[in-house]
């Protein structure tokens, strides 16, 4: 994995689709942790904010051969991220020391170029003024700044939790250079343990091992974006969802159908 040579930390995520049952716990945990607001009831489809989107994908066949998989799609934190270099206001940044691609909402001017650039549709726009029902501000997480209308936002591997973990490490007197271990909200909440998160550069760590498994695949690998989110499945048809539309159909007979 070609990556930032000097860095000793590169956070990555592995999602085992054979364990995922599509309960949506990750979505809710993410929203609770990151103060992701709820659009008003009249909002159109595709206007919501879900840093962790869960997409239902099926094999295109009819009952009883029909099979479904749910694919949680957070920001893929690509090594060659299409969103960074397009942002005119430097609001999207790669943290070289962690590999996390951050979004600075207070700088974003809302041009949405990054959203057009992202092939994973992992970026969301605040179409509405984020309004919270009365009193609900009291349940917001102080570690994550709430956003305002008109800016883009996305998963940042729970950067707020990373900051807390760093504070804790500093308080415990651990050296700053030492890699910090933390768990994003989705990984903590997943009731089926489908999400593994960690430092892929850690020797003998779980991420490095999982990423090398034969059932590992990434979404749209041929694009060359090199996502840091890896998926696992033993099912061949599920592994093919990472291909492009025609490649998935061609030679395999499984018609793709988003659901």
């Amino acid at each position, binding site marked *: 994995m070609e990556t930032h040579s000097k860095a000793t930390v590169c956070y990555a995520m592995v999602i085992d689709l054979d364990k995922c049952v599509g309960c949506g716990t990750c979505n809710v945990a993410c929203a609770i942790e990151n103060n*992701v607001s709820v659009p008003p*009831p009249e909002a159109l489809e595709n206007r919501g904010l879900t840093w962790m989107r869960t997409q239902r994908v099926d094999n295109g066949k*009819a009952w*009883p051969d029909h099979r479904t998989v749910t694919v949680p799609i957070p920001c893929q934190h690509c090594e060659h991220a299409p969103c960074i270099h397009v942002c005119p206001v430097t609001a999207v940044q790669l943290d070289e020391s962690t590999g996390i691609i951050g979004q600075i909402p207070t700088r974003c001017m809302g041009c949405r170029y990054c959203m057009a650039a992202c092939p994973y549709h992992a970026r969301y726009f605040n179409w509405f003024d984020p309004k919270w029902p009365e009193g609900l501000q009291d*349940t917001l997480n*102080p570690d994550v700044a709430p956003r305002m209308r008109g800016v883009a936002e996305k998963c940042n591997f729970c950067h707020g939790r990373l900051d807390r973990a760093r504070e804790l490490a500093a308080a415990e007197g651990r050296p700053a250079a030492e890699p910090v271990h933390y768990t994003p909200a989705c990984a903590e909440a997943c009731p089926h343990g489908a999400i593994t998160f960690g430092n892929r550069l850690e020797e003998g760590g779980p991420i490095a091992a999982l990423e090398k498994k034969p059932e590992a695949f990434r979404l749209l690998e041929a694009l060359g974006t090199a996502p840091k989110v890896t998926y696992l499945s033993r099912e061949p048809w599920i592994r093919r969802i990472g291909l492009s539309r025609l490649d998935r159909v061609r030679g395999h007979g499984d018609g793709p*159908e988003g659901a």
Partner: protein
Amino acid sequence: MTLDLTRRSLLKFMGGAVVGSVLSPLPWKLLDDAAIWTQNWSWIARPPRGPVSHMFTTCQLCPVGCGMRARLIGASFVSAWPVVGDPAAAGTLCPLGLAAAQMRYHPSRVRGVARRARAAADPAWRIVDADATTGELGQRLAACRSRGAGDSIAIVDLRPGRAMSRLYREFLARQGGGIYATAPDAWQASAAAFAGMATVGALAPAPDPARARTVLNFGAPLTAGWRGRDIVPHAAGGPRLIQVDPAATITAARADRWLPARPGSEAPVALALAHVLVFEALAADARVNALADLPHENGSTLRTVLADFAPERVAANSGLTPAQLRDTARELAAGRPALVLGVGDAGGGPLGSEEEAAIWNLNLLLGAVGPDGALGVRPADTALFDEPAGPAARSLSDIPDGSLDVLLVDGSFPGVPVSAEQLRRKLRGPDGLLVALSPYAGGAAGTPADLILPVFAPGEWVEDVPAPALAARSSYSWATAVAVPAPFALHPAEWLAQLEAASGLVVPPEGGKSGHEAELKRRAGVLQSRGSGQVFDPADGNTTDVAAMSDPDLLAGALARGARWSDKATLTLADRDVRPLGQGGGLAARWRSLAGGRADAAKPGATGSLLLMAGGGLAPAAGAITAPVLNKLYRESGLQPGSRQLAVSATTARALGLAEGKSALLTTAHGRRRVKVRFDNSLPPDVARIAAGPDPADMGDPAASADDRTDIPDLCGAAERPVWRLVRADLQEAHDGNA
């Protein structure tokens, strides 16, 4: 030099000033301030500030009662997280629980005693004077009591077994024989069906999938149901899983064997499997075989009844092949200890007692009951806590329609599948008063109510949480108070005492808030004095044996810190306590009537072209109160289809002339509802599924709970029949603007 101020010199001065200020730090300071201003606006929500702390409690949003770590910023309860190692639900939390912190600020929360005139043109909730309302209600109770009609007062307790439940029962006893009722959900109904087959009295069934090598599961979704996490698929180190499921769900796909039985054919399928076990002599052993020959009414035995359910005969209506049924039975027999679960879909209401009986029988024949079986028993809650016998709990459906003057519904539980229509039918005409003790103007209690008493929201008070029905072991914990209570919220026990005083009675010491607290302490004391079981401490993850606890108050102290007591092992049920064909008889006849399938046996409306399955939602009841953030599941990701979406396979929909996303009218014999057609090719032909969950269009918007809406349970006839998970329905494209 003269000072001659001309316009020209003034302009020059101004020009110079402009140029000069550009060279000063002023414009850069202004730019900087402008940049800061555009980034920090006063109207951006401000999270609370303060030191971070954690408290441990138990989730009160569903019967499972998962352990919960509450994160507090200062005094604000900001989020809930799972407790690693907690015995309930393997230390996980579902989306409902994760969003528990938001429940206190739900938009539909009632901020005072609220009343509405349902008949009026404007049935909006109005805040009324609390004392006057309680006084009026007390006089009503007094009037009922004085005319000897104590049974025209009832309390429906949606979560029986709590300390509060005991307070309700005692209150009713003092009111001259009021009715204490429960509305059993799928689990409670299943446990009740088991009790009908076994002379167990104070024992409840305790199936333990962890002890089974094979699990046969009738329809319970692993995806979103409450039971899902108990059953880990074989591939992940769990038991072999055989899933009976009409749809090609994720659970079905993950299972080691999938039986795509037609909806409603659960009972015949279970009986056909039992048939194979008995007639191929695959049953556990001679001891178990003897069960099949226990004599019953008219000389019939289980063996003679099962003779009618040969796989060849059942296959036709179940959509399965005889070979599939025989192979499954053999697989079960070979894979002992095996366990058959029949809870089904938590959102879809109970399976019928016939299905449950067939399933429990299958368990018996597989030797699940016995020292080596996966099905144990545990003490019922009342027995566990040495409660004195009060008025017996009745099922809501057993209360005659039109018989109640005052019906109190404990709605502190925001969503259980109870039919609003059914509740209202129990009232005596328009004068009957339905009183909800509920934090919300919605949900099972708030939706049909005339009067809402704004009780504490989850997390605002200490309440006890007994083990859910069908739990493998008894357990007990307290939902500790992690949040500052809302100033307008009432303690249910305290209000009950006020009501009692208003009805002219003297409140005994075991009533009121102090009575509730005393009962909690008493229960902790009883458990400690029993000396069995262990206590899980969420703060450090350690487990301590109760027997090792010396101080008599230790358990109460641990519970107050969010610890969970659980029993170590289940009890074994003796063979002689079991009667396969039940206590009252008639089961054989009812089984035969279901040979064609549940939906066809349903009395009215058996003419529809579609089989409508209700259920599959995370929140169990339509109109249930769920946190605003649950919108992520219901609307933004579409993971939980709402109750306005009807799933059908593309082929079926096209045969009906319906395209995806089209608006359609769904009609059953019990009502109709406007739905949006959603293609779901995991469903078999001619089967439609509707979620008995919240309607995404109504999420976070209490005003949208209009009266003209048909709840899914009502649409499926829940007010008229106990089993409403399946009904015949028609679907046609909707052309007009209103349903």
